[in-house]
């Protein structure tokens, strides 16, 4: 069975925020909530690097582990989804998430945050596939149509890859090798195991 993952190739990301816009538009995400974001380190410097991050659909999801209502579930593909009907808006998933993926529409007194919203890998939610309720609550269900998430599909440089983990890693590995220099991936000089100075076999 495929295990769905995201991979953002920070060497290709140009901070266009196309992924952010694609996601927001495709899923008609509510006001004030942004499921995906692009973070740029050393903005304006020579070694500026951008990376696009949303829910990473962890195999051992911390959000699932701390939820008091047990509203999270994982599909066969490894996509982590949640049930907004059970969500009480306590915020624990946001505290636990390493990537800050869970978003809440409001920040009010007495912990009234509203229902948690996050990247669904464009796989909708527990409601029936392609129903109006699913669209309203969770956004698009592209996975059920055999398509991949909109963010990756619309990435202008194909920095953001999404899909089966082994296929995604294969693509990325090809790129690193093709680049043929020591900082082709996320390392420099000695940290990269692959020795680019040697002739290709």
């Amino acid at each position, binding site marked *: 069975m495929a295990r769905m993952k995201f991979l953002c190739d920070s060497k290709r990301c140009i901070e266009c925020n196309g992924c*952010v816009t694609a996601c927001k538009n495709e899923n008609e995400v509510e006001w004030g909530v942004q499921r995906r974001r692009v973070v740029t380190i050393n903005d304006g410097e020579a070694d500026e690097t951008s990376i696009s991050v949303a829910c990473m659909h962890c195999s051992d999801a911390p959000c699932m582990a701390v939820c008091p209502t047990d509203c999270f579930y994982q599909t066969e593909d490894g996509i982590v989804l949640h049930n907004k009907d059970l969500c009480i808006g306590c915020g624990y998933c946001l505290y636990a998430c390493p990537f800050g993926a869970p978003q809440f529409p409001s920040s009010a007194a007495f912990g009234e945050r509203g229902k948690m919203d996050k990247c669904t890998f464009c796989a909708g939610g527990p409601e029936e596939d392609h129903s109006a309720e699913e669209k309203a609550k969770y956004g698009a269900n592209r996975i059920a149509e055999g398509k991949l998430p909109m963010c990756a599909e619309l990435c202008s440089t194909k920095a953001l890859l999404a899909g089966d983990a082994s296929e995604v890693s294969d693509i990325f590995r090809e790129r690193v090798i093709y680049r043929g220099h020591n900082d082709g991936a996320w390392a420099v000089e000695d940290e990269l195991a692959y020795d680019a100075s040697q002739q290709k076999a």
Partner: protein
Amino acid sequence: MLRIKWPLGLALLFTLLWSVASHATTQPPSEARIAGFAGAEYWKVVRQGGEGSTQAQHDEAGQLINSQGDYWRYWRNEWVTPAGAIALGGTLGLLALFYLIVGQNKLDKPRTGRKIERWTRFDRANHWTVAILFIILGISGLSILYAKFFLKDLLGDELWSSYIMLCKLAHNYLGPLFVLGLLVMIVRWMKYNFFNKTDLIWFLKGGGVVGKAHPSAGYMNGGEKLWFWMLTIVGIAVCVSGLILDFPNFGQFRETMQWSNLVHAAASLLLLAGSLGHIYIGSVGTEGALEGMKTGYVDEAWAKQHHDLWYEEVMEKQREKAEP
């Protein structure tokens, strides 16, 4: 005045230090430039919570990795949750055992029928308000921590979502009321609860809980004073952490909320365990105790047995009033 000042001062200092400490460790590495060109050092800084710029406007959006969340998950799920269950289950078990073996602390001498006022109307109103709030907050809080393990499958999605949402609403809206009630109680009763030599002897004699010993005690005995201070110190921790959690609209960092949650859960579980003992002693554990807090009056025989020094004081006052 000084006697009231120092414990409050201590509590204030503790709160101040704790909020400063949590804020101090909250900032991610504040390097103007993150070193290295996407090398190990670079990603190490990111991993430790280094921030970049972003178009996203929500809190802490510039931070790529929040690794403290994993520690919070670990401490909450692997330590607080099991320890709480053991503390509560263990206390219940011990109390049940105690009741079966030792039984109720009965009145040694028959009731004389003469009553003495022990708790004023305001005392009782304050106590029962705080007590009832405590029970509701306790049940809702315990539900948030444990209910998913056994109630979710039992109730089914519809009922479960209504129940747990009710728990959250009750907990978040009644919490601040509990803070007020508890503060009133602490301020009003603090003067009765400072420890002295009588209490030391009371503790050394086991509080007369088992056997025929009748150690002396004033208005409050050593055990009651201990419960008061537990409620004050641990209770203030619960209240402060609870208020931080209940009002996230002040832009708290995730790390602040994680710490507050751990303190809140651990302290509350401690209080719950203690409250089981308090409830036991105040109801089935001691004959003649509950009516004191219910009606405000206790029988003379009960007063002589459990609070002989207080009884003497009351009698002295009555004698003074009788002789003009």
